[in-house]
Each structure stands twice: as structure tokens, then as C-alpha cells.
């Protein structure tokens, strides 16, 4: 077992556990775009970054690829982390404004403006579909092609692949394929339709009780603690 500090809590996890898994186990939510439990960690989206080390000498690492070590001081929601994460979300919104997953993240993390020009890409190169096809479906029909700015996901020679079984797992897992809900607002880069939703705990308690999503704890406890 490895003992370390997670947001001030003394926690212990098994050796080889990544920080993301540890945080997930202790109920701390870290946003990700390129991580899935059934697939190998990839560290592409950088949204899962956390701050490690003592304040003043800390650094940001991607928690999905960083394994927990003895005596580590991890902060998943420090000021520096939130600032970096918000900037990343802002860039993702500019890159792919049509994605529901990204728009919901923007609302959740209170990203209210986008300072970058919209690119309207179809793909954020998270690699989920490539890993899904390879590791779970065992088909290996698609892969990354080219490099740098010309990188994209494609089948060999952009032809219909013989390895593809048309299972649709790549579309199922794609965070950019799910189109955003537009609602009554006029079309904008940033949706922010869910921004005004308050945490449900505030209706019943004076303080936000948890950071879980969806929050079920306070709904269970409604008849026990009607303090307000």
C-alpha cells in the first residue's frame, strides 16, 4: 500500500494505482476527455492535471498517467489547477464547439468566455476511438495518421477497412461526436445553458454538502436533516 495526501486527506491505495483512480476511489471528481476505465491511460487531453509537491515547489502532472507514490502531496482542485483547467476547457471549446461533452464541462467549470477563434474541428485527437478499437474491440481498424498539425484518425489509405466490423464503439466513446443541445439561445461558441443551475444541496442545507455528481447524498437525507 502507498500512503499519500490527497486534498489534505491521508489516504492509502494499492501500489500502481494512478492518481486519477485514487481520486475516483475517494470520491473526488477530476474531469477527463481522453480517459476511460476500460482503456489504457493516454494523457492526451491534460484536463486531469493535478498539483503535486509542496506549495511553492509544486508542479502539474496528468493524474491519469501518474502513479501514486509514498508521501506525495496531491491537490486536485487548487487555484493553479483550476486556472490551468479552465484555460484548457476554453481552448477545447474553441477547438470543437459542437461537442456536448465539452460544452457541459465549460458550464460546470464556469468557463464563461472564449478568447480564441473557433476552429470547428470534428476531432480533438483524444485517441479514445483508436484505443477502443484496439484494446476492447480487438479490431485495430483505425489509427492515427500523419503527425503534428496534420494528425488525424483514419483507416489505412482512407479506404474502407477489412478489419472494421462496424461495431460503432468508436462513435460510442467519442466525446466530440455527441452534438450539443442548442436550446432557446441563439447559436454561440459557448453554450453555458447549464451555468445557472445551482447545486441541489443549497435548497436543503446552508452549505454545499458534497462535490459528487449527480448528488444523491442529500436527496437520501432529506427527511433526516431539514435544518434550513
Amino acid at each position, binding site marked *: 500500500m502507498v500512503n499519500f495526501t490527497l486534498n489534505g486527506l491521508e489516504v492509502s491505495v494499492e501500489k500502481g494505482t494512478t492518481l486519477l483512480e485514487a481520486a475516483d476511489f475517494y470520491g473526488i471528481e477530476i474531469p477527463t476527455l481522453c480517459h476511460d476505465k476500460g482503456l489504457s491511460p493516454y494523457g492526451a487531453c491534460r484536463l486531469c492535471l493535478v498539483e503535486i509537491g509542496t506549495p511553492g515547489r509544486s508542479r502539474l502532472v496528468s493524474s491519469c498517467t501518474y502513479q501514486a507514490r509514498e508521501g506525495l502531496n496531491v491537490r486536485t482542485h487548487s487555484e493553479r489547477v483550476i486556472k490551468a483547467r479552465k484555460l484548457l476547457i476554453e481552448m477545447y471549446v474553441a477547438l470543437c464547439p459542437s461537442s456536448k461533452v465539452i460544452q457541459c464541462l465549460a458550464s460546470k467549470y464556469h468557463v464563461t468566455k472564449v478568447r480564441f477563434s473557433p476552429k470547428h474541428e470534428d476531432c480533438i485527437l483524444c485517441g479514445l476511438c483508436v484505443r477502443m478499437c*484496439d484494446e476492447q474491440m480487438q479490431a*485495430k*481498424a*483505425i*489509427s*492515427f*495518421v*500523419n*503527425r503534428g498539425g496534420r494528425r488525424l484518425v483514419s*483507416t*489505412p*489509405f482512407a479506404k474502407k*477497412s*477489412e*478489419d472494421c466490423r462496424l461495431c460503432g464503439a468508436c462513435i460510442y466513446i467519442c466525446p466530440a461526436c455527441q452534438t450539443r443541445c442548442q436550446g432557446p439561445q441563439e447559436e454561440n461558441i459557448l453554450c453555458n445553458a447549464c451555468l445557472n443551475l445551482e447545486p441541489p444541496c443549497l435548497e436543503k442545507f446552508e452549505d454545499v454538502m458534497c462535490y459528487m455528481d449527480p448528488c444523491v447524498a442529500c436527496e437520501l437525507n432529506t427527511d433526516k436533516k431539514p435544518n434550513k
Partner: protein
Amino acid sequence: MGLRTNPKACYRSYMKVDLTKIDQIINQIIDKYKDDEDVPYISILQDINDEYRYLPEEALYRVSQKMEVSMSHLYSLATFYKCFSLVPKGEHEIQVCMGTACHVRGASRILEKVTRDLQVKPGKTSENGKFSLETVNCVGACAQGPLVVFDGKYVGKLTLNKIEKMLGGNHEKDNKTS
């Protein structure tokens, strides 16, 4: 496998896609690396690329069948590395350095001259299949600038006259051999 800077490989005459050659290469490689856990796909592709001066689609399929590796993995390798080409390359490869030092010393004029003389655009192969022209950003020999890498040989301190000599000489060589 080490660096592949065998200039002779570039002088081979153009070949039709012959799959028996690929089988030979694959068999050689399998013998060479049969104890390794990681199969050196890149080495195989490099050998094929040396042989044909590009990676024919049929060759990739053959490798994927023989080595039991996915086609998508090979294609991803072939498109990632600059040393691989999926379209046939010319007999001679010319790389014109466009780095800062060479640029200051007139690399753009050199490039213009080469483009005009050989009727090739940068990144393309001439119609007769003799020359492939590429621009590169720095080859690390800035003191020699302006610089052209001709079939792996560095030709430095170029002037327009020297270029003519270099290309002219090779034209003659081509006439003799063909």
C-alpha cells in the same frame, strides 16, 4: 538497424512491385530478430522503402499478413516518419536547406534555380521519375550554407553556377547508365 545512408540504394533502376522481394526481406528480418520481443516493424519498412524508394500498398498488406500486425499500425508508422513515402520517389533525392543561416545566404534563390532546372516543385517528384525535391529546415551544417543534400551527400557553399555543375554532372551520369 542503424542509419540508412547507403547512396547506392538511390541509383537502382525503377522496379515494378515484386512481392517475392518483400517476402525475402521479411524472412531475413524474422531470422535476425526472432529472439526480440518487440518486432522491428520500422526496420522492415525501412528495408522495403530502400528497395522500392517508397512503400507500395501491396507491400504493406503483405507485411501485415506475414507478421500478423494490423494494417492500421503499419500505416500509422508509414505516415508518421518522414523517411517513409507512400508515393514513388525519384532516383535522386534533393533536399534544399531553408534554415535561417541558409536563408540569409540565399537559399530561396537556390531553391528557385533547382525548381526551374529540374521542373519539380518542392515536395514532389519530377515527371520522368528522376528527381525528388524537398525543402528541409536545417541539416546542422550552417557554416556550409547555402546547402543542398544531394542523395545523402552534403553540397555546401553553393552558388548558382555550382548548382548547375552538380545537376549537370548527374544528368550526364544518367545518360550513361540508362
